[in-house]
């Protein structure tokens, strides 16, 4: 990613970076439709998309499997990327990531509760069984848990960055303690379901899932992206930003609410996917500088691209089996993360 050209103004460079990231995201999305366990020639993929050609297995693979999971990958990746960027700005801490505001662990707590107590509920009221076995039960629980955790963080921290950060850490610790208790109480099958969820996957996406997640993520982007100016001012410190006329508390509330919505919706459908929110904003800042107008939008784009690319790897590398996508993002993200730490140290 070398974008230095002499005489290039900062504004032009920002535009160039964003355009390049948008192109990368598009390329990743197209690649995601073309690769997979079932070999289908690119020309055939287009004719399936255009007028439903191909046999049933091919049509199912493109329209019912690859297309929804590509779109979900874009939504989840964008949420994690922009969530990480917004929180790193708000907490003025380069190591912040979307898990810090408690939504992931809140979702995990609710999901594990749903998995373990779902069986108990079915035993008590067999009429509930079809609904509890369905996908919406876990997803609604997870989203509810994410929102409850976010409300606790917002309520305890009242929009002040440091208090919200500490509240998030507290909520995380509490959630994980309860998760530990439920894991102990779980049986063999439940334990495997829990493990699968915590490794993350976007393979189960269907059109109803996309329809449920997309509006929430778009709403969250509408909340977060306009906060760029405020986050820029915040780099000077909370008091200084206040003197510049930035409503610091409202900014904090808006950012955390937006991140909670986006990441909460994402985690509910994909499980926990690590490192995207932590690493992506750093890479964008490396290419385009610290201006939040670029960092927020760029992190959404690069997060989306990285997520879709990781999913392509996850479903081709061990075909006809599939890796959990969270494992792939961690494999890509960890070396980058360590390299960033090393760079920071040499800067200091």
């Amino acid at each position, binding site marked *: 990613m070398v974008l230095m050209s002499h005489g290039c103004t900062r504004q032009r460079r920002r535009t160039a970076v964003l355009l390049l990231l948008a192109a990368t995201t598009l390329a990743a999305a197209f690649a995601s439709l073309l690769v*997979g*366990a*079932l*070999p289908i020639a690119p020309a055939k993929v287009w004719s399936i998309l255009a007028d439903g050609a191909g046999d*049933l*297995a091919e049509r*199912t*693979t493109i329209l*019912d*499997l*690859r297309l929804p999971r590509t779109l979900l990958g874009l939504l989840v990746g964008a949420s994690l990327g922009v969530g990480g960027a917004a929180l790193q700005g708000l907490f003025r801490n380069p190591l912040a990531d979307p898990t810090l505001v408690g939504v992931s662990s809140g979702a995990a707590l609710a999901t594990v509760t749903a998995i373990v107590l779902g069986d108990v509920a079915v035993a008590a009221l067999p009429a509930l069984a079809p609904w509890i*076995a*369905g*996908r919406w039960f876990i997803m609604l629980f997870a989203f509810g848990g994410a929102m409850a955790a976010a409300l606790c963080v917002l309520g305890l921290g009242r929009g002040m960055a440091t208090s919200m950060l500490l509240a998030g850490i507290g909520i995380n610790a509490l959630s994980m303690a309860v998760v530990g208790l439920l894991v*102990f109480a779980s*049986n*063999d*099958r439940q334990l*495997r*379901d829990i493990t*699968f969820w915590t490794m993350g*996957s976007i*393979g*189960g*996406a*269907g059109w109803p899932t996309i329809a449920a997640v997309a509006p929430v993520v778009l709403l969250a982007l509408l909340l977060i992206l306009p906060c760029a100016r405020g986050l820029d001012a915040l780099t000077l410190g909370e008091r200084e930003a206040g003197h510049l006329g930035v409503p610091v508390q409202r900014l904090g509330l808006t950012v955390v609410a937006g991140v909670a919505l986006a990441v909460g919706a994402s985690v509910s459908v994909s499980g926990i996917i690590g490192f995207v929110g932590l690493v992506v904003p750093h890479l964008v800042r490396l290419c385009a500088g610290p201006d939040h107008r670029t960092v927020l939008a760029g992190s959404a784009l690069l997060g989306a691209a990285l997520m879709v690319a990781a999913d392509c790897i996850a*479903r081709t590398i*061990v*075909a*006809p*089996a*599939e890796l*959990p996508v969270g494992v792939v993002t961690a494999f890509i993200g960890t070396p980058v993360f360590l390299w960033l730490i090393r760079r920071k140290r040499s800067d200091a």
Partner: protein
Amino acid sequence: MRRPAVLALALLLALASGAAAAAERIVALGGVVTETVHALGRGAELVGVDRTSLYPAEVQALPKVGYVRTLAAEGILSLRPTLILASADAGPLSTIEQLERSGVRMVRLPEATEAAAAPRLIRTIAAALDRKAEGEELAGRLDRDLSSLAAERAVRPPGPKVLFVLGIGSGPPMVAGSHTAAEGIITLAGGRNAISGFEGYKPLSPEAALVAAPDLILTTDQSLAQLGGAPALLARPELAGTPAARAGRVASFDALYLLGFGPRTADAALALAKVMAEGPP
């Protein structure tokens, strides 16, 4: 009773004349499903199996579509199956739904943790494969074996108390409570599950093991290897004080053979009964 022989002959003639059921491309999800397909003589039509399908040995060369509970739809469809046989364990649900929408014929099988389930499973798979006659023969033989086991149990004194132990990674081993396949096979062999206080599998605690006072410790070959062999297992602090450990009584069998509740269930129960009958050496 010459009917089976006549049936077999008729079938051989049918096969020879090429009038047998059309060849399928079968993906089997679940070790016991794969084993049953083989037992029904249709193993050659398997094009893919899950990671728990380890018996018979030749299935290990087939493409693996992942672990039975974390399957992916596209990988399965990429094998171009005409029939998907899914055990009750197969999942996640989203993948099963995607496979159902793909139009490929899929048969989902009921859960099996008790003796009665094994012949039922064989008949269901045989019907799906259009092999009702072979299914009837195999299931009938199993029914008879299970009946003679039941007759044995009725006249014998209650068997020894058996503690089933499962190794999972590090940490304490898990023991089988009620409503588990382990309890099913122990009961079938005429023994009693030493644990009765809970359902499913729970980590073993020293007090619980002492209270359970098992006469025999039962485990799988895979767990025994993981736990470091019989002497290491018996030396564990949770187990060292039990009658089984003092008498040095550990039995282990292949996991699928012992807990699969498939065609070899009666064999497994007989083998276990034999070990239990040996008494303290």
